[in-house]
């Protein structure tokens, strides 16, 4: 489909139109529709993981795929050829292996070439160094498994090449196995290089910083200066991000940053936006110094006419709103002023974090106006693209919590209806907040529908939520209809508790939950159900509260079932409750009892008396 046609649709589709519909990427199948954030994540990754699996198979068993011709040939549908085509020991072959990113094979070939006495051009050696430094290269005596790990990492890189939007970029944080090792291949090759240019040094420095060898990187930088080379801007950026690992004291860190910046100016290296982002990122870890130096850095950017990226603002917010005293909203509103004015293209891997941290600041400040402004900014242009699945979820979950806290209930309900399954999957905390908002606004009649959503989201077994729902429902007396709905809801919750686990253990009854369910049944006039709940108290060795028993008695009275009332008294007596006397007198007064029933009531009395006397005697 030509882009000009589809682009013409795009404003209409800029946000999903049907708020009840799941995202397009999910299969249109009831069993494959995600119900909550966990399944959504799983399903959204499924396509990509299938692709990776296919790639893996092709990579592992290339001999099964030797007949890959088609007419007409569509190269993008063909698997990438990852086996080197050039045989033999030559620089050409080495270059091919480097291009295919075969770390170990490249190193082996390099060694072979060296042993054969072939001189290898500086350019090729540099690109080999690039490869080794990027992947953090292991020892040449690598075990098979670590090689596999490397392969895994490689495939991960390939996957990111295939553009997995879900995967958060983790390059900045040092990835697992690949730490910089002493005298690894990169260092070895670097040492035996007959001549080195600035690029060789720079790539070594970047590799060392990336793989956590900051001190070595700094030494390498000194060597570079001694050799009278100039570093490039990326190298300086890497060095600046390494500053927190080089110095411990905040002021020393800042001095070091300033030194690097001065060196840049001396070596006539123009800083770019990533340079300043790196500076600010380091200032995040400089406490008060960071707070005082952040503004001059921003001013410097302005003076150089470098437009800040979203990451710049993210670092700013983090610098100014980290500490507990969140007195002012000055910085964030200024940041929002700037953000609203521009549209952003990604320039820094940290760009994606901005909207989430900004929303967090709004939450911390409890400033709904700012949150609305921020949300407008998100919807503007292509900014929404900065929020991938996971980030979108946490963004909306924060926003929703804030809404529940600060907004009128109708507004909250409107947002809830619009965003609930299509934009994000509420977290348990969101649901709690929502329930509290409903309670605060006296809209408890909504609870059954919230309960339905909870079941959908898979929260029906979360005890905190169940307790909250039940206690809210059973707290007050409501009109009959609502009570009936509540009773239905209570029945649901009862089945949740009673599902004896084929797959999972059922939720244990707690006293309060049992009591609430009983009350709800009683208020709806479902005496039999209520009584079955009463019996359960005994089974799990819990004691019903007076409120529960009163409600049950009321219910028995309304439905004119004196038998149940007598049973209750019996129960209370057998549990040895002090309220049994009161209940008994109530039963005697309020119910019309037959002779047999009266007798039964009397006998309970004696039972309880005897038990009382027993206990008395025990006490004696």
């Amino acid at each position: 489909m030509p882009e000009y046609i589809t682009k013409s649709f795009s404003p209409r589709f800029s946000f999903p139109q049907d708020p009840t519909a799941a995202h397009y990427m999910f299969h249109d199948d009831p069993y494959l529709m995600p119900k909550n954030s966990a399944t959504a994540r799983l399903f959204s990754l499924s396509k990509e993981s299938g692709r990776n699996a296919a790639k893996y198979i092709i990579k592992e068993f290339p001999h099964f795929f030797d007949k890959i011709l088609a007419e007409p040939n569509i190269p993008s549908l063909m698997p990438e050829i990852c086996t080197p085509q050039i045989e033999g020991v030559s620089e050409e072959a080495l270059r091919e292996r480097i291009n295919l990113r075969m770390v170990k094979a490249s190193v082996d070939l390099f060694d072979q070439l060296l042993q054969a006495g072939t001189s290898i051009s500086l350019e090729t050696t540099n690109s080999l160094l690039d490869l080794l430094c990027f992947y953090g290269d292991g020892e040449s005596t690598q075990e098979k498994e670590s090689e596999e790990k490397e392969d895994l990492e490689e495939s991960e890189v390939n996957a990111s090449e295939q553009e997995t939007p879900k995967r958060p970029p983790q390059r900045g944080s040092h990835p697992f196995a690949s730490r910089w090792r002493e005298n690894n291949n990169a260092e070895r090759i670097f040492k035996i290089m007959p001549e080195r240019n600035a690029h060789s040094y720079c790539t070594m420095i970047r590799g060392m910083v990336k793989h956590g060898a900051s001190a070595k990187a700094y030494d390498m930088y000194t060597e570079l200066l001694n050799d009278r080379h100039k570093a490039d801007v990326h190298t300086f950026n890497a060095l600046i991000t390494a500053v927190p690992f080089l110095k411990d004291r905040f002021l020393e860190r800042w001095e070091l940053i300033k030194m690097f910046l001065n060196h840049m100016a001396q070596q006539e290296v123009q800083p770019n936006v990533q340079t300043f982002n790196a500076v600010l990122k380091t200032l995040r870890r400089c406490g008060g110094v960071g707070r005082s130096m952040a503004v001059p850095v921003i001013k410097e950017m302005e003076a150089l006419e470098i437009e800040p990226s979203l990451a710049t603002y993210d670092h700013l917010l983090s610098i100014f709103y980290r500490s507990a005293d969140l007195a002012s909203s000055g910085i964030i509103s200024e940041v929002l002023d700037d953000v609203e004015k521009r549209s952003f293209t990604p320039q820094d891997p940290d760009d994606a974090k901005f909207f989430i941290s900004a929303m967090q600041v709004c939450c911390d400040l409890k400033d709904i106006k700012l949150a609305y402004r921020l949300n407008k900014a998100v919807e503007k242009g292509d900014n929404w693209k900065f929020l991938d699945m996971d980030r979108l979820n946490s963004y909306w979950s924060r926003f929703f919590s804030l809404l529940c806290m600060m907004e009128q209930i109708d507004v909250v309900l409107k947002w809830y209806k619009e965003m609930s399954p299509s934009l994000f999957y509420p977290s348990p905390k969101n649901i709690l907040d929502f329930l509290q908002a409903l309670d605060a606004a006296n809209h408890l009649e909504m609870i059954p529908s919230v309960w339905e959503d909870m079941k959908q989201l898979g929260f029906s077994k979360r005890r905190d939520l169940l307790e909250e729902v039940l206690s809210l429902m059973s707290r007050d007396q409501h009109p009959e209809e609502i009570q009936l709905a509540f009773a239905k809801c209570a029945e649901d919750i009862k089945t949740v508790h009673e599902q004896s686990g084929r797959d999972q253990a059922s939720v244990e009854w707690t006293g309060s939950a049992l009591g609430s369910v009983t009350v709800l049944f009683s208020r709806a006039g479902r005496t039999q159900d209520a009584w079955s709940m009463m019996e359960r108290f005994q089974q799990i060795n819990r004691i019903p509260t007076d409120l529960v028993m009163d409600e049950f008695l009321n219910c028995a009275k309304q439905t004119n079932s004196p038998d149940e009332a007598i049973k209750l008294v019996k129960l209370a007596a057998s549990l040895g409750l002090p309220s049994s006397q009161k209940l008994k007198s109530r039963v005697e007064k309020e119910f019309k009892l037959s002779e047999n029933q009266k007798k039964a009531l009397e006998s309970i009395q004696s039972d309880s008396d005897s038990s009382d006397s027993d206990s008395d005697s025990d006490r004696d």
Partner: protein
Amino acid sequence: MWRFTAFEALLGPEDYNPDVTLPVHSSGAGRNAVARNARRSSRSRPAALKGRRGCERRAEGAMWGRLCGSGRILLLAGAARHCGRPHSRTQKLFSTSSVLSATEDEPTAPADSTTKVASKEGAAETPKQKLLKMIGDMKVEVTTKRKFQQLKEQEIKKQATNKQEGLHGGSSTFQNSAEDVQRSKPLNPELVQAASAVASSFPHNKEQAESELLAQLRRHEETTDKQRRGGTINICNVISEMTVKRQSPAQRGVRISNRISLEMDEDGQRIKPGRPSSHSDSGRSLKAGKRLNIFTKASPETENALKTVSSPTIWDLEFAKEIAAVTEQPPRNGFEEMIQWTKEGILWEFPIDNEAGMDDGAEFHEHIFLEKHLKDFPKQGPIRHFMELVICGLSKNPYLSVKQKIEHIEWFRNYFEEKKEFLQEI
């Protein structure tokens, strides 16, 4: 049994079904049997991959089907190709993979033997008889091949029996092939006839002339074949295009950085109006304060100088990817998905173009209408007739490029030019 039409010889047929009779073409000559057989076996592949081949074929059929406007014959040719498929597939399936590895180098021996037979017997015969013999040779080829497979199955050493078998087959099937030709007499091999007609108009060494003409046709057949097989070429293409694709993120990165710098130029001048309210409620503001005064703004020249960087390193590539991943979103609807697929190059481009992937820079009419290249030939007579048949065949051959087709015609032009004196003697 295999039967070929004159056109097919030029078309570079692959798996023709003997049961399909072509209503228009005449059938006969099997000159190319030797080459074809070699090709057939070298192209053998696991049965599972045949399906793919089929698709390929179908695509071709579509390609040439499109040209049906230029003549009904073409349409029929296309249709015949279609019909031919199922049978030939079963044929291939029949020669199962157990034979597969064995067939690699098999046909060379019988090929030798048959050609020997051909040359020996063909010495003193008339062109027509020679033609018949050739057909016979072709049959020999086929039968030997079959027998050969049987022999394989019986695990008899091939070298010893090779020649014997070939000769034996040749003699035994000679009558058959003769019969066959008899049966298919109404469909005469016009091209060969035309060739022999041209040759017969030569005063001396008619056979030589004819065989030269036919040899050229055969050579052409071989190139056709090579190019159709053209896997190696395609793989090269795949590789080259892959490397291009690899570089694209970097290019994107470069583009992004260009865009960034553009935005800087646009927006950097703008003076940001300070908001009084923001000043009032906080002690700190982004607006107040001094700059670091470390850097000086670079002049445009130095900026440009910095931009001329060498080829992107792995760092640049990965950084570009990382940046692109920041705003990467899965498609939100079918349209976006199609946009994405088109960008990835896995969706057929619109408007529909069934010549996609065939980029030799020539339009289809250059492939089809080759009459304009016959200007230098006589307006009538046997040579004209012969050449018309040649271009007719060429126009239906999808495997040769336009340049090769013209070269082919050129060869005939030069050839007849050389023989002009002989021709004029008549």
